[in-house]
């Protein structure tokens, strides 16, 4: 299939093509009209001297004489731009004046004949007039060069050409800008769609679109709607599934806990330990899936921000985090500077908690992890830094994908922690940066909230 040409060039071709045809045809018509008008007018004025000469002719004994003074004849020849010639013929021969080629048809008496011919290698227009006489018809010819006729036609053509060109240029400009203006709503639509996140499935404003584009926008919205519904269903399914898992998981966990307290053979004790670890992982996973489902844009959970100080907010979970760090033999420290953000407190704590879990999971024993809050570039940030093995630069964007795990890393995570952090950051229009820690060692993840 051939790609469609641009709307603009199509319109230009369809509009300017016929316009050029019309302008060309009317130019030809104008040329012809001008030519015939000029010819008629100048022919009539060429006939006048011929008539004057005819009146002064005398025929006696078959010989023609012109009863006219030289001065009078010269007066007839006066013209500002053209040269005039007169001659008189009798019986096919010139008897007075120069040899002007004869008319193609002998003029009848009283009806002049006009014709074009060449005299002295110049095109000339000739008026021939027949005068009856006893010795046969005498023909008077008046010839003139074509300078003023050509000049008139030239004038008409020039004027018409200028007008035609002006019309053409104006039409071109009108189409060009008209198309640009007419297509402006499409361009606006394009820009709106281009700046959208792939998760933003809100409909496009239909009312602003021009009539011709509205059906397209409408169909686009219908598609977005279907997509949103299917995404929501999928989201809902994940949430329901994770949810349904909780009750049996709780029962499993309770039973494993009960078994741990029983006197067990070493083999069975080992099995129960493994069961406990697996149950914990499953519980953690169900919690993360639910969290991810809750913060997913398609979950349509309303965004209800409130003004919070990050340092104050994160203090409330310090004991919890310290306990978790202790369990892994990691030195967890805090650098909490006042930093106000507008956001959802629970989710911000969740994000920080996920960052810490990650750092604690991937930092070896005796490692150092630090949680920071503060202000930078007018915005507020939460940051977790560890001195663990770090993440290779090539993998730093990949780790934010769901279920992504850096190859060969230990720990119970399913690779959802950073995905949750990213979704929470997106919700707050915050950015997430992952870099190496101080001195190029370890990992530092920063969530930077926009100012205001």
């Amino acid at each position: 299939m051939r790609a469609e040409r641009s709307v603009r060039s199509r319109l230009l071709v369809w509009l300017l093509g016929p316009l050029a045809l019309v302008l060309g045809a009317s130019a030809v018509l104008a040329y012809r009209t001008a030519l015939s008008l000029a010819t008629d007018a100048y022919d009539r004025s060429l006939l006048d001297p011929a008539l004057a000469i005819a009146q002064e002719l005398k025929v006696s004994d078959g010989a023609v004489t012109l009863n006219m003074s030289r001065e009078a004849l010269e007066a007839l020849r006066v013209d500002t731009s053209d040269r005039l010639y007169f001659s008189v013929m009798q019986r096919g021969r010139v008897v007075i004046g120069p040899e002007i080629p004869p008319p193609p048809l002998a003029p009848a008496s009283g009806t002049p004949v006009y014709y074009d011919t060449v005299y002295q290698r110049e095109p000339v227009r000739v008026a021939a007039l027949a005068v009856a006489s006893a010795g046969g018809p005498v023909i008077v010819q008046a010839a003139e060069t074509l300078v003023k006729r050509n000049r008139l036609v030239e004038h008409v053509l020039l004027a018409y050409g200028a007008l035609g060109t002006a019309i053409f240029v104006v039409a071109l400009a009108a189409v060009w800008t008209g198309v640009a203006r007419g297509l402006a709503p499409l361009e606006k639509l394009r820009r709106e769609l281009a700046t959208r996140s792939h998760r933003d499935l809100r409909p496009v404003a239909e009312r602003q679109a021009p009539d011709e584009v509205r059906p397209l926008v409408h169909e686009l919205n219908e598609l977005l709607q279907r997509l949103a519904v299917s995404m929501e269903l999928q989201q809902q399914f994940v949430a329901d599934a994770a949810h349904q898992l909780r009750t049996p998981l709780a029962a499993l966990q309770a039973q494993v806990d009960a078994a741990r307290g029983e006197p067990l053979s070493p083999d069975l004790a080992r099995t129960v330990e493994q069961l406990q670890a697996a149950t914990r992982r499953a519980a953690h996973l169900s919690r993360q899936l639910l969290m991810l489902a809750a913060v997913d844009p398609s979950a349509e959970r309303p965004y209800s921000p409130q003004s919070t100080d990050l340092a104050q907010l994160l203090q409330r979970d310090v004991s919890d985090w310290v306990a978790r760090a202790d369990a892994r033999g990691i030195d967890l420290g805090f650098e909490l500077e006042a930093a106000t953000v507008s956001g959802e407190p629970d989710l911000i704590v969740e994000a920080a908690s996920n960052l810490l879990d990650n750092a604690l999971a991937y930092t070896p024993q005796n490692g150092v992890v630090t949680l920071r809050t503060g202000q930078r570039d007018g915005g507020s940030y939460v940051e977790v830094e560890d001195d663990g093995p770090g993440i290779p630069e090539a993998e730093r964007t990949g780790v934010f994908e769901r279920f992504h795990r850096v190859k060969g890393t230990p720990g119970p995570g399913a690779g959802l922690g950073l995905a949750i952090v990213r979704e929470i950051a997106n919700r707050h229009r915050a950015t997430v940066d992952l870099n190496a820690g101080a001195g190029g060692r370890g990992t530092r993840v920063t969530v930077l909230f926009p100012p205001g």
Partner: protein
Amino acid sequence: MLADGLARTLRRTGHTVDCVASAEHALLALDHDAFDVILLDVGLPGMGGFDLLARLRRRGNTVPVIVISAHDALGDRVRGLDLGADDYLVKPFEHEELEARVRALIRRRATRVTPTLVFGRLALDLVAREAKVDGERIELTPREWAIMELFLTQPGVALAKERMVQSLSSWDDPLTANAVEVYVSRLRAKFESAGLRIRTVRGFGYMLEGEHAS
């Protein structure tokens, strides 16, 4: 299955546990016996767990209730606490977590009767303003006492140094963070032999730990 597992583990740690499978049975049991704590699964069949809780509170029964739910939506949590629940646990949870909360609720109830805070081998008698380790009196200055009281009213919680300064500065003269460090090091010396450790949480403050950390 959940109730059975929980009951077995709780019994082993010295609690007496009765299990019922519906809200109606729970009401009957509550009419006959006095309980220290109720673990209420709001996913109960028949009368909803929240209805049971509301009915209990209407009757003026103040027994501490821990709501157990598969929902961690904020709305459910608030609803539970509004109806008079004392705590809220989301499934699934670690038994240690449940145990800690049960102990906390029982202790909270107990302190209303006997105003003594206990942490490991240390007991603070709030009326007599006496600190005892294994029944033996330890001399504390008023500020040292205030710090220990802060630690024991929220056992196992890391205290921000800032907050300690604020609490202690309610005395006539203001206190600096350095002064808090001095008091803490004195307290460390006094309670080391009692198996109590005041550990530094880097950049944040202090946390009291004991042999029996809870």
